[in-house]
């Protein structure tokens, strides 16, 4: 992706959904063998994420949404089905996919700048341009002046900002986020949601955001994929056509509340089975 980040700021509304979608999941199924038999975590999940589209995946815990994201990231294998990214069959981790985990996973012995540069260092792509890029990203996520700080000197929100900057360093076409603000307190999370909306206006990527926070999903997304509990299936895909860029006041509009209610009703129709929320099981 070479297109200048800045030129996209002023583009109003959602981007045109032209050409080959950036990410395509086709009939992705994932089963785990356990002592009590075969557990189907994901059952025939198909979805597409268009270029520069923001898609959220919501569902009760245990519905396999994290597994789905890890399969997209190439960190786990699908039992059946395929993932295509940028038109290519994806079989493992790749450079044009950025990942943000639920915890910031910053290296405690590296400062903010070094942490942001880590993907370049591991990919042996350190260069003056990369450093410049890292510096720009640090500024964009609002951490200018904190380049030399170690992670333990930062708040949880600042740590996650660093992680977001790191995920964007290599200009991925796709950004995968696994409940990135789940560990933050409610107020920080709300602020980080607006920050992410702003960041996405600058760094337009195809984003898949896994979350269990419905308003977070509505606030940020073009589309919301609602999943059922295990075996994880797609219940419905809801389009969110609220104006962009999204502002904090959008949450007070009737449209916003309608969408939230719609998603909530869908989730109510497919409640999590009791005793089936063992996280470890599908993370393994």
């Amino acid at each position: 992706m070479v297109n200048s980040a800045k030129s996209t700021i002023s583009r109003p509304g959602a981007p045109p959904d032209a050409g080959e979608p950036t990410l395509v999941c086709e009939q992705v199924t994932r089963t785990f063998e356990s002592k009590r038999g075969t557990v189907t975590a994901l059952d025939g999940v198909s979805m597409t994420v268009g270029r520069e589209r923001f898609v959220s995946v919501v569902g009760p815990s245990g519905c396999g949404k994290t597994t789905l994201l890890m399969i997209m990231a190439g960190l786990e294998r699908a039992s059946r089905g395929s993932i295509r990214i940028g038109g290519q069959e994806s079989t493992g981790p790749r450079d044009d996919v950025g990942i943000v985990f639920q915890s910031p996973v910053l290296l405690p012995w590296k400062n903010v700048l070094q942490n942001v540069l880590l993907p370049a260092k591991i990919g042996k792509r350190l260069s003056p341009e990369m450093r410049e890029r890292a510096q720009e990203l640090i500024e964009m996520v609002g951490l200018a002046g904190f380049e030399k700080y170690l992670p333990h000197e930062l708040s949880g929100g600042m740590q996650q900002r660093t992680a977001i900057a790191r995920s964007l360093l290599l200009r991925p076409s796709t950004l995968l986020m696994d409940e990135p603000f789940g560990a933050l307190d409610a107020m920080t999370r709300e602020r980080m949601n607006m920050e992410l909306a702003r960041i996405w206006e600058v760094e337009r990527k195809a984003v898949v955001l896994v979350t269990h926070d419905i308003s977070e999903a509505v606030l940020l997304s073009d589309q919301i994929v609602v999943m059922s509990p295990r075996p994880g299936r797609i219940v419905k895909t809801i389009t969110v056509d609220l104006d962009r860029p999204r502002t904090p006041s959008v949450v007070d509009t009737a449209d916003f509340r309608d969408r939230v209610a719609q998603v909530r009703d869908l989730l109510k129709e497919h409640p999590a089975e009791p005793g089936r929320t063992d996280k470890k099981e599908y993370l393994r």
Partner: protein
Amino acid sequence: MTTLQAPAPAPAARRRTVRRSAGSARRRGDPRYVIAAAVVFVLLWQLVVVFGSVPGYMLPAPMDVAKALWHGMTVAPSDRDSYLPHLWHTTSAALAGFALGSGAGIVLGGLCAMNRVVNQVVRPYVFGLQSMPKVALTPLLMVWLGFGNPTKITLAALLVFFPVFVNAYTGLVNVDDTYLRLFRGMSASRWQMLSQLRLPAAMVAVFAGLEMGIVRAQLGAVVAEFLAGQNGLGIILIRFQYVNDTAGAFAVFILLAISSFVLYRVLKASRKRVIFWIPSHTDKR
């Protein structure tokens, strides 16, 4: 052992709020209390000796111990009474054993952590060796290595090896799963995972092992001197036993305690430099 994993970010965030509270000074201890306790202890000791009519070969008076220590430390090093050459022999043997044992522990622990075959071959034997009291090997070491430094160094190294090995191994293996995912997501090579993630993450555990090791090194050196020494503090302890010079023995105890403590503090200080990212270390972590 709670120090083996790379700190998970969420608890780290919680820890931050408590750190550097007024409690940290209290935990470290006020030197005034330590000195006061020492003064009271020495006074009681002196009282017991004076009024308790304990014979000097059982419990020497503190002043006699101080005199013995002063004499042993100030007399010319060439003098037979001087502690200095012995202190040097014991400490240097302990340090050599420490270097050897911890080096072997780190290298072997690393190999076990990196290679499944090595791990399955080596680890059972290491644990088998550990369950045997290594001091019992001293007579055999004497047969193999003779009287003197090689035996001392080997025994010290054997005692140091185990805690360092175990800590290096577990530190390298027990890295938080999400960090491994992060590195796999960046297509990191095995070498990069080791050098950029596992090694620095294991440093906390390695230092915990080294701290145990440095004390054991001194132990190994002194025990070997009892049995197979030609010089060193262990030898003068034996000599003092023959001549009932209990004051001299006490002076050597003090010397051993001080040298152990100094080595331990040096290690602690270097730990602080190496593991700079862990804020204001307390013994709790």
